[in-house]
């Protein structure tokens, strides 16, 4: 790589590369041969350390063997307008966000709605590592080793009714903790949504960590969505509410500028953002651009969800 970029990060947040690589090799051995999308469940429940390492987790590399983006880039270059609109603002303002205690309200068309602690939310789930490409609508991309569990597993626990056609997510609204919310750059709180089949897709993840560590606050701690075939803004951060609903929910960027940010926001090199081309992207850490892949390289798994839709119009 041409460029090195030292960035200030608390030493406690960094996994020594050697440790990480050793763990990865170990995981690769363990995961070898597991071709199915979902690995067999490990016994025991997830325990979420407030800060720190998750230990050994099953891992699936789903980014075509592409190199991981360095941790310091992932934590220093963020779009998280609640913590500021500049790319380095979220890292700087992260401290003011209190991620513990944290509650998540599950509501709408479910048999068991309620207000749960994060521990209740996570308790029955088995965490795993998923290495995904992340493609931002601004034409840059990363490869991130997330730690999380399938959103489908969580939704099933709360028993969606037959009227649950969409899932709506909401980020924390608290200008005290989120200085970016003191100005109405966007309509707060940030909201995102998925169609129920997208939400139930096995690639759709609820993440609580990356690089084997608790999610840094600037990356959407303590609980965020990861939908790897959609532009990054769909992957809502610091979630406090998940509602199953009957009709398509209002989503923040779509509401702000619907001609630029569609509800679906599937990564599509053939449909430009009105202000820039989406045909190519710059992988963080590289100087020149590379071609953007349809559905961010996950077409084989997800293209079927959109059969019969005109993706130029429903972008």
């Amino acid at each position, binding site marked *: 790589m041409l*460029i*090195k*970029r*030292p*960035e200030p990060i608390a030493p406690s947040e960094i996994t020594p590369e050697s440790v990480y690589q050793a763990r990865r090799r170990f995981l690769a051995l363990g995961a070898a041969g597991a071709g199915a999308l979902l690995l067999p469940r490990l016994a025991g429940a997830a325990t979420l350390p407030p800060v720190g390492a998750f230990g050994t987790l099953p891992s699936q590399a789903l980014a075509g063997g592409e190199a991981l983006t360095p941790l*310091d*880039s992932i934590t*220093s*270059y963020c779009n998280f*307008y609640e913590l500021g*609109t500049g*790319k*380095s603002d979220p890292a700087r303002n992260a401290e003011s966000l209190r991620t513990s205690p944290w509650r998540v309200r599950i509501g709408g068309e479910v048999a068991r709605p309620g207000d749960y602690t994060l521990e209740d939310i996570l308790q029955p789930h088995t965490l795993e590592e998923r290495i995904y490409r992340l493609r931002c609508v*601004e034409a*840059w991309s990363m490869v991130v080793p997330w730690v999380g569990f399938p959103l489908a597993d969580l939704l099933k626990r709360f028993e969606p009714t037959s009227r649950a056609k969409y899932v709506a997510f909401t980020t924390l609204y608290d200008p005290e903790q989120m200085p970016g919310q003191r*100005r109405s*750059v*966007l309509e707060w709180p940030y909201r995102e949504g998925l169609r129920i089949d997208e939400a139930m897709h096995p690639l759709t993840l609820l993440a609580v960590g990356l690089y084997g560590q608790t999610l840094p606050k600037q990356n959407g701690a303590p609980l965020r969505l990861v939908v790897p075939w959609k532009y990054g803004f769909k992957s809502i951060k610091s979630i406090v509410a998940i509602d199953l609903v009957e009709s398509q929910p209002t989503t923040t960027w779509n509401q*702000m500028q619907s001609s630029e940010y569609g509800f679906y926001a599937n990564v599509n090199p053939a449909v430009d953002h*009105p*202000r*820039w*081309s989406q045909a190519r992207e*710059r992988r*963080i*850490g590289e*100087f*020149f*651009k590379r071609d953007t892949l349809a559905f961010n390289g996950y077409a084989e798994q997800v293209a079927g969800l959109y059969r019969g839709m005109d993706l130029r119009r429903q972008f």
Partner: protein
Amino acid sequence: MPRLNLLFLGIGLLPAGWWVIGLLSGQLGANPVETLTRQSGDWALRFLLLSLACTPLRVWGHWHTPMRLRRQWGLFAYFYAWVHLTIILVLEHELDMLALWRDVLDRPYITFGMLAFALLTPLAITSTKGWQRRLGRGWRRLHRWVYPTAIIAVVHFLLLVKADLREPLIYGALLSLLLLARLPKRT
């Protein structure tokens, strides 16, 4: 070259010098191309506004020194606009002139950016004493084009931000002040 101009030549080159050092030492952030694109645009606009501040400072502040830097600042605006355009042509479009041209036609903020650059070009070329002499009264008329150019550059900035309009609005407010200060002084 007078000492004042030499000093400010050195100062004006600091951002460009920092980019070279920052690139080599990896201190331009996770996305150095974006950092360079943005900072070169910022400096082009800042120098443009500085060059426009000289006359009001003389008229209203009775401060004459900046007038001696006006041409240099205008040329720095052009220099940084040129760096900005070169970065975009090489690193965004990878020397695909057709792609750049399509952007100029399709994307209003690029149209405005290119227009600002195109308008600055003859001003930069005719900034020398020789051209000033040759053009006579026409020189002043030609160089009044800097006002619409600055407005176009600010519109370029306004159109390109995603949601946070604060920065371009600050530049717009400064530019408005500098233009208003040119209205005839009543006595």
